């Protein structure tokens, strides 16, 4: 999981709507005052709340973009260049929050990873703690990735290595290339299918959020199950992504 893209924040879900604008005293809107337009001090909210969205995964990117542009017009430092120094600072912070939030939410994978992060799933830790458990109990660690996928990844990597060797010695093995191409097509299909699978889990997650919004209690187990499924898909996807990239690199120039 690329922790690099998700900045860590206090996941306060809602902000205090009762606060008022520091400048004109009117009721404040999240990032800027609706009455006088002044930029407000940043509040620690998650990216979904920043855009006034519920933490659902199916979202309309075109609407998000429009919202992003509109907020940029209010918050960007260039447009607040003549404001007081405090305001300029807030504008810088608010605007970088806005950019981070937009960059994260517009990308379906980053959005999913971010949600998992908000929900406290620590992907980096998973494998390590499973290993520690295996060490303590002496049991064989259950691999997070299905063995047959590992097998396939390994096999294909062997073939790629062969291809690279051949390229170095100037040989050409059309049969090998053809076979790798075939694998590649299959992998790309799988990659697509994984995305669709992920989307189906989005649906169940969103359904769960909707139930919560309607005031129904959602059992923790159900929540966890929905999250686990997404983690699993993302893990498998990492392998396929690497593999497709490597295949492309190895094939480059060999045709």
């Amino acid at each position: 999981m690329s922790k690099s893209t998700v900045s860590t924040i206090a996941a306060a879900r809602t902000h205090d709507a009762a606060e008022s604008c520091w400048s004109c005293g009117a009721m404040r809107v999240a990032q800027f005052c609706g009455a006088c337009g002044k930029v407000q001090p940043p509040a620690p909210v998650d990216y979904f709340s920043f855009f006034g969205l519920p933490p659902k995964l199916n979202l309309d990117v075109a609407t998000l973009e429009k919202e992003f542009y509109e907020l940029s017009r209010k918050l960007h430092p260039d447009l607040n260049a003549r404001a007081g120094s405090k305001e300029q600072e807030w504008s810088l912070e608010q605007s970088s929050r806005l950019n981070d939030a937009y960059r994260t939410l517009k990308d379906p994978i980053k959005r999913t990873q971010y949600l998992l992060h908000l929900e406290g799933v620590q992907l980096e830790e998973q494998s390590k703690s499973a290993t520690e458990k295996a060490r303590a109990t002496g049991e064989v660690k259950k691999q997070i990735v299905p063995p047959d996928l590992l097998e396939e990844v390994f096999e294909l990597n062997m073939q790629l290595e062969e291809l690279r060797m051949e390229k170095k010695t100037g040989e050409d093995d059309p049969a090998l290339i053809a076979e790798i191409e075939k694998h590649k097509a299959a992998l790309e299909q799988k990659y697509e299918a994984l995305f669709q699978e992920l989307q189906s889990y989005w649906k169940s997650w969103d359904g769960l959020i909707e139930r919560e919004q309607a005031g129904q209690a959602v059992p923790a187990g159900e929540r966890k199950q929905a999250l686990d499924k997404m983690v699993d898909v993302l893990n498998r996807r990492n392998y396929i992504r690497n593999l497709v990239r490597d295949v492309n690199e190895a094939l480059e120039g060999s045709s």
Partner: protein
Amino acid sequence: MSYSDKVIDHYNHPRNVGSMDKSSPDVGTGLVGAPECGDVMKLQIKVNRDTNVIEEAKFKTFGCGSAIASSSLATEWVKGKTVDEALTIKNMDIVKELSLPPVKIHCSVLAEDAIRAAIGDWKKKQESAKPVAAEAK
């Protein structure tokens, strides 16, 4: 500006790269992956049936420099150890030896996993004992 010298040494001169016959009853094979990055590692051991000493170890890793160095080091370490001794190797030992940075800890986890998986595979073969059924794979 880059990896520690030990990592680079293992990376440039990996020890024990290769493979052994995985259907052999004395060979245990561990194939593991790091979901964080999508890397794979295969580590094999050949165990003396009478002494339980690991006589031979081979690996093949498709992954980052740290993963290659970790698995290379792992094969060096397990050789000459008994199976039970080998099970005491912890990923943090590898981290210390190679001075891996925090972001590369999972690479060492992968190596420990591979040792455990290989030993697990070998043990399974010993349990299903005598008639060594040629496995499906």
